[in-house]
């Protein structure tokens, strides 16, 4: 038995299973003959930690990963970017490696710097540059750059030249698929796990061309067609990989989260100032300034926030932060009040929002690493959070760091397909079931003792 996991970052059920179905003959063949459904993502539903939750079966709390940055100690401004070295649990390829299975692992975040494994690894989009060691074994890098000199880890998409960006995303993904097809053909492997980041980039930069209900909807046939032809290219490569399967190979297509139209960005730190939680030394702030660029009156500040697809709020607690203000005995009450206030934030026209606020302990059994005191999904993630400030309004219709059309949604997708099996079942599942499913397919799940159950219906493909 061999398993191929094709990760499509941000692939959304409504597009993959419905709206674009007619453009995706191979993927549709997989859903019609396999098992498929929505895949509920992690909290927060973000690339980091979601892919590592998939690869380890561990929660973000266990992994101690809650997003693309962690706080260094209890510092106000120092942050750290996650890397492979922060992953302290075995991934499925580590577990299989210990059982003499060779893996090919491509672009799973975060896998930079690449750790040794029996097999091959190419690190993810957080690799600083092509001049770094981005492969294991190191020699693989030369082979890649020789055969695919245009290989790219990522694209920079928040720039105005839309047509150029969409072509770049296409090129990047097409090249990565060609590279993995070559590896699958030429190298020995028992397990394969890749992540293609292009769909996420495409959604963020071009959602307005396919969503008639988006507040920035633009009717532009050329861009719409380019959007669709990107997906046709992905489907073409899925078909290529299907051709390489024998009867004993199982292909899983998975995504780490879904997508939906972004309604805007809410300047959360401006709101904290108005509510009396955050104090600046000088109230005049240039538009777009971030907290680490201005002087914060920390000793009079009760709370501050980080932006992103969700907001993280930190309390300034005596004995924890070096200019802490809130007495530890008051923390519980302060959190309760702040939670209520956050839940009552209304939209730009006074409309009610469905904001979700939680403390990490409410979601995870174990809470490791540098976590914020509160996690906030503004209007059920429809609004992103801007950590920057200095704006005339708290409601920004564009993102604060450049144009962006989409936010993340809770449900991604999964499909499990085995050649010559006719199953055709739709069963919604959870991201926590991916690692147990993979181990179950290799018959090592029970021996390894991984937490969590394999996906329902897995017996049909076994």
């Amino acid at each position, binding site marked *: 038995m061999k398993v191929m996991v094709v990760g499509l970052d941000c692939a959304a059920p409504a597009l993959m299973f419905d709206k674009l179905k007619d453009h995706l003959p191979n993927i549709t063949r997989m859903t019609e003959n396999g098992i498929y459904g929505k895949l509920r993502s992690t909290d927060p539903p*973000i690339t980091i930690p979601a892919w590592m939750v998939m690869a380890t079966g561990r929660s973000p709390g266990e992994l101690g990963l809650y997003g693309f940055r962690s706080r260094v100690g209890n510092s106000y401004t120092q942050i750290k970017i996650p890397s492979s070295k922060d992953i302290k649990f075995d991934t499925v390829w580590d577990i299989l490696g210990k059982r003499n299975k060779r893996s090919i692992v491509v672009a799973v975040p975060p896998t930079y710097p690449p750790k040794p494994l029996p097999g091959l690894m190419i690190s993810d989009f*957080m690799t600083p540059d092509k001049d770094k060691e981005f492969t294991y074994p*190191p020699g693989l890098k030369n082979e890649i750059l020789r055969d695919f000199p245009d290989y790219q880890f990522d694209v920079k998409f928040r720039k105005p030249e839309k047509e150029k960006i969409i072509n770049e995303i296409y090129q990047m993904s097409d090249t990565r698929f060609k590279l993995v097809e070559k590896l699958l053909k030429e190298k020995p492997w028992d397990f394969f796990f890749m992540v293609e980041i292009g769909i996420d980039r495409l959604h963020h930069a071009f959602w307005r061309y396919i969503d008639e209900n988006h507040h920035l909807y633009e009717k532009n046939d050329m861009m719409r067609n380019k959007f669709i032809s990107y997906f046709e290219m992905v489907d073409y490569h899925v078909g290529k990989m299907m051709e390489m399967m024998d009867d004993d190979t199982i292909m899983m297509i998975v995504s780490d989260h879904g997508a939906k139209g972004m309604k805007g960005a809410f300047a959360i730190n401006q709101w904290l100032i108005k509510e009396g939680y955050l104090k600046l030394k000088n109230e005049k702030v240039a538009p777009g300034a971030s907290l680490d660029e201005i002087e914060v009156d920390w000793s009079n500040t009760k709370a501050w926030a980080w932006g992103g697809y969700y907001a993280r709020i930190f309390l300034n607690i005596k004995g924890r932060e070096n200019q802490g203000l809130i007495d530890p005995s008051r923390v519980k009450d302060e959190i309760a009040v702040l939670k209520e206030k956050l839940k009552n934030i209304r939209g730009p026209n006074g409309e009610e929002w469905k904001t979700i606020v939680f403390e990490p302990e409410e979601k995870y059994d174990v809470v490791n690493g540098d976590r914020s005191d509160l996690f906030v999904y503004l209007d059920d993630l429809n609004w992103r959070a801007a950590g920057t400030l200095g704006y005339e309004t708290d409601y920004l219709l564009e993102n604060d760091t450049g144009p962006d059309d989409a936010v993340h949604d809770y449900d991604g997708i999964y499909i499990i397909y085995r050649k010559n099996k006719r199953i055709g079942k739709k069963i919604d599942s959870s991201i926590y079931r991916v690692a147990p499913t993979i181990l179950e397919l290799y018959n090592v799940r029970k021996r390894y003792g991984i937490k969590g159950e394999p996906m329902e219906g897995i017996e049909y493909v076994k």
Partner: protein
Amino acid sequence: MAEDKKYTTVSIPTPLFEKIQQKIKDTGFTSVSDYVTFVLREILAHSSDNEAFSEEDEKKVKERLKSLGYLD
């Protein structure tokens, strides 16, 4: 104890040993052990034991993540 000795033994499959023996025939390597040590050192030299990102790398990645909307 390994740390008391200058050298220690690792096991490799015999066919691999023989393959290496063939490969280093008429080369500058005098033994399979020499060759294996050389190759392993080469591989280890490429992997860093320290921080994942240098200061400059981290700056680069942060900037990219900012432009992608993950950090703001």
